């Protein structure tokens, strides 16, 4: 069986090369954030100095980013879940057109969306200067991901009959939605929430134009740090970003699987995942 062993070895080497290609920059970047002088190398020693520096200079951007992404999640849940419900229950020309329309902020470059917002609301001083201005941009951009994720799950359920079943047992509109529709769509809602949180925290295109010096978010601050400060500071910033986002992702994912159920396995992969940020 020599040829088989050889082909396995070749595949393994190839896989390791690809992994190395992708992982080494991450490790190097993390190390850069912990090295006293990156140009001298590791022999210059390890330090937490850069991390502390970032925390002092950009601490507010971190909490702001988390705050905006959570607010964005709340808004997309409140708007997106009912929207998906309507799209699932009433499939006609108008709802289909609405669905297409909803996807536009993903297709249109973030820069264009941001320019439109700035040109219209730029003169509304308080709004322009507040974090809610960024929130509007983030909601525009992330809402389709929430709607798509929830809609995908809703379409696999026979919502109409399920609701009729609940209605025949005396359940009101609200009770049907709360007891039957929402719990059965939980998987889609969690998938959508995950997308929205990560997209919002990492959003740069829109935010770059929408922010003011007082409403910098984490990615904007990161760009700032790389552009104007030592490489070590920028790398330390990346490290902090990484430390924040990973537990957030793990926590949200954990919510999705208290029980493994067959009907959920059948749900198609979230279409939103195939879309790449513009």
């Amino acid at each position, binding site marked *: 069986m020599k040829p088989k062993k050889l082909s396995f070895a070749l595949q393994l080497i190839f896989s390791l090369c690809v992994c190395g290609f992708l992982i080494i920059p991450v490790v190097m970047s993390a190390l850069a954030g912990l090295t006293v002088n990156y140009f001298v190398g590791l022999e210059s020693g390890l330090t937490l100095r850069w991390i502390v520096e970032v925390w002092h200079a950009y601490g507010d951007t971190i909490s702001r980013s988390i705050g905006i992404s959570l607010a964005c999640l709340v808004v997309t849940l409140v708007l997106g879940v009912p929207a998906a419900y309507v799209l699932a229950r009433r499939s006609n020309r108008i709802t289909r057109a609405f669905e297409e329309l909803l996807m536009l902020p993903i297709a249109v470059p973030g820069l264009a969306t941001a320019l439109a917002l700035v040109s219209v609301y730029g003169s509304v001083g308080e709004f322009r200067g507040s974090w809610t201005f960024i929130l509007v941009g983030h909601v525009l951009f992330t809402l389709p991901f929430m709607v798509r994720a929830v809609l995908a799950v809703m379409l696999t359920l026979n919502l109409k009959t399920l609701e*009729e*079943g609940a209605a*025949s047992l005396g*359940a*009101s509109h609200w009770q049907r939605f709360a007891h039957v529709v929402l719990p*059965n769509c*939980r998987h889609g809602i969690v998938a959508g929430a995950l997308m929205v949180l990560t997209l919002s925290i990492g959003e740069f295109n829109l935010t770059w134009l929408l922010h003011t010096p007082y409403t910098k978010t984490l990615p904007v601050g990161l760009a700032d740090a790389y552009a104007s400060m030592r490489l070590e500071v920028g790398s330390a910033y990346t490290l902090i970003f990484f430390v924040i986002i990973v537990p957030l992702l793990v926590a949200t994912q954990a919510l999705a699987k208290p029980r493994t159920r067959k*009907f959920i396995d059948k749900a198609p992969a979230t279409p939103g995942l195939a879309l790449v940020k513009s």
Partner: protein
Amino acid sequence: MTTSSYQAISIELRHCAKTFPDGTRVLHDLDLEIYPGETLVLLGPSGCGKTTTLRLIAGLETPDTGGQVLFNGQDVTALDIAKRNVGMVFQSYALFPNMTVAENVGYGLRIQKLPADQQKQRVGEMLEMMRLTKLANRHIDQLSGGQRQRVALARAIATRPRVLLLDEPLTALDAQLRDSLRVEINLLLRQLGITAVYVTHDQSEAMALGDRIVVMAEGRISQIGTPRQIYHQPKNDFVADFIGTMNRVQGNISLRRFTCPAGSLAVQADDKEQAELMFRPEDVRVSTELHDDGLQGNVSASFYLGDRTRLLVDIGQERHIVVESAARCELQPGQRVVMNLGNQAALVA
């Protein structure tokens, strides 16, 4: 569970027509009375309007203007399904995947805000009655088709509804399971004494379950009657052909004898120039001793079905006569036979 827990109400549909938004008329001005405690079966091919009729009774559809649905004489037309107090079993069962068996069965009671201990007790009774106690904490996707069916039934009757509505509840199951569940549903309906409306396209299901059967075609009622009436006295060709097999022979009647090229036999009907004789396959007596009384023909095919033998007999007309005879019948294709009918077995049109 006592029978008295369930009320038996009458249902009346008055001038119920239904036109869908796209203009399709699925029901034409239908009048129907369902007696308290009876099981009424709506039977017909797909698209005949039977499910729409059921949904009108349920309150999932509203009739066109002028139509009325009455429960015990009280007009419920404008009442939403949630307020009609009906139990419904859906073709796809519509069980809630996010709830366990017990939670599904108890959902209606939870909505009714029944005290927790009573909820628990009633759910327990229902599970026991439907032999589901061991499955109480299972999730719906861990159940077989037959078990799901029983959960759907238990859920529908747990709230002690005024009416039980069943929309093709056995269609999704395989034949053997269908037979045993049909018996089970039959027993349950008798035991509860509840007014029930059962929709099916399966005639044997209709025969087995219905106190009365409503045969529907193209949005209209073709015939209402007991299973016997529907089978033995079909009102029109559609009913005759939809339920079971009907043989038809063209000829004339004079002096209480039906005559055709294949022979003649006695009938209880008045003289008629052009008459059609109709009879069921199982009402035919076949004999190889040829004589003048009866219709003669050649066996063209013989199908051994285990419990009986089905023969096709060529009497010189386009459609061969279908005959059900005893399993041990040894007739072979090509043999000449004479066929006679039992008393009252022949229908004349």
